[in-house]
């Protein structure tokens, strides 16, 4: 046997420890690099801006720590809007998918219409919802919450219904024949085949709709009547010229996004654990 010497690069590529290190370390070191450039004002030079428009990370941190109780309340409202909208929207989306899967003749066409809803920009949707919900309650906070949740909901329906429909209908070859050979009823086929088959697709939908739910929650807060939430604070502070506080809320919005995505990935890895064993 001829022993071939592998290049260092080759060996690194094949080493699984190096693999995980590179997938975790590379992005983190890139982030750290940006932070360093930011703090040392290299970024400001590149973008030709000042520390008022783009406050230093240390300043933003300071503001978050000093105002943590107010920030927490606002963050909580945004999270409630995003999560409630996400959950209700996804449930409705899944039910639409079930309906479309049961009546596939019209179902696929119906889903195209749902998909078209997805093309409506959030900025257009938010004021409309605020207008529609003005008679829901006498309490402006409740009215606004309903409007904001509706926006998130509508946005989340599309991705769930389209993905779940695929999960309910794209079955492996012969699985339907197998169920038919057992004389399984439509209900049994749904419960024992279609439903479990759709679970990974549900998570695909969530991977899209979790970030979107936060974006739409933040944007709908801009247009809401009642002044609360991370999105609203970003707007208010920019209007008042308080850029550092606005930036603090931008960072918080990012953190909420990361947190929710992290929770999703954790739940997904537990639920789909058995399907991913090697």
């Amino acid at each position, binding site marked *: 046997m001829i022993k071939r010497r592998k290049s260092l690069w080759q060996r690194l590529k094949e080493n699984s420890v190096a693999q995980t290190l590179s997938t975790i370390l590379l992005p983190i070191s890139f982030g750290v690099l940006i932070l360093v450039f930011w703090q040392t004002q290299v970024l400001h030079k590149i973008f030709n801006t000042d520390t008022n428009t783009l406050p230093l990370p240390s300043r933003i941190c300071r503001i978050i720590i000093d105002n943590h109780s107010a920030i927490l309340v606002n963050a909580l409202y945004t999270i409630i809007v995003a999560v409630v909208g996400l959950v209700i929207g996804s449930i409705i989306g899944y039910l639409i998918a079930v309906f479309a899967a049961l009546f596939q003749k019209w179902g696929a066409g119906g889903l195209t219409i749902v998909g078209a809803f997805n093309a409506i920009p959030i900025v257009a949707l938010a004021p409309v919802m605020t207008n529609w919900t003005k008679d829901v309650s006498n309490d402006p906070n409740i009215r606004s919450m309903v409007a904001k949740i509706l926006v998130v909901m509508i946005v989340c329906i599309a991705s769930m219904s389209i993905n779940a429909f695929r999960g309910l209908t794209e079955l*492996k*070859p*012969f*699985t339907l*024949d*197998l*169920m*038919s*050979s*057992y*004389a*399984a009823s439509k209900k*049994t086929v749904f419960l*024992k*085949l279609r439903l*479990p088959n759709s*679970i990974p697709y549900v998570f695909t939908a969530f991977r899209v709709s979790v970030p979107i739910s936060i974006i739409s929650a933040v944007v709908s807060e801009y247009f809401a009547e009642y002044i609360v939430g991370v999105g609203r604070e970003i707007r208010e502070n920019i209007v008042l010229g308080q850029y550092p506080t606005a930036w603090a809320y931008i960072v918080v919005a990012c953190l909420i996004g990361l947190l929710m995505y992290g929770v999703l990935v954790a739940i997904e890895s537990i639920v789909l654990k*058995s*399907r991913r*064993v*090697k």
Partner: protein
Amino acid sequence: MNEKPAYMNNDIEIAINNVSVVFKDNSGNNVQALDNIDFDIHKGEFISLLGPSGCGKTTLLRTIADLLEPTSGNVRVSGRTPKEIRLMQKFGIVFQSPVLFEWRTIKKNIELPLEIMGYSKKDRSDRADEMLEMVGLTKFANHYPQQLSGGMQQRVGIARAFGIRPEILLMDEPFSALDEFTKEKLHLDLLKIWEKTNKTIVFVTHNIQEAVFLSTRICVLSPHPGRLSAVVDVDLPYPRTIEMRDTPHFGELVSKVRNSFEGGSL
């Protein structure tokens, strides 16, 4: 006492009466998949439907299983329609691929039809354990399908099919995706299970050696349109052994089958 194996009694289990199947292809033309197939399968027999691709062997199997309606003619299973037999849950089917649900463990996959048929939890578990032992996968009961090799997965598929104690086992090229070594082992396993259970097996294959090694009789089908060219009796004794493949008689049977294809040798 009757010492003969069940299949030698010649009781008719499946009667295929002048079955023709016509498909419409994508451009709307009629394609004759099966042309007037007429023969009987006996109780306890191991019969192979053998032919090249396009000969309609899978189509014929699907009409027996009531997964497909013949265009004309009919199939009777124990005097009933295939639909009645299917609704009585008397068919066990093994497909070309194992068709296992990746969200269920091996044992739960074997239990799936038993669940649908309303067996109690304990009965399901006992039966699945028994089947796992039969195919030698007891150790893998709690593994997931994707953790098993292709051959092991196909064994699970066979265990699942036998688990419902079917009257008739329909197998559609179940070993075609496996390597020779695995295939040889599964042939012996399958024959052992067949001899023990006395079930009627209808086995679709395009492999002449495989058909000769396993079957009591071989239905040779020719393509375009799919029609029955010959029915060849395989007079090798059971239990069959790997060594039989090297005997001159085995070779003679293989050539006999090969020569029975219409239009001579393939």
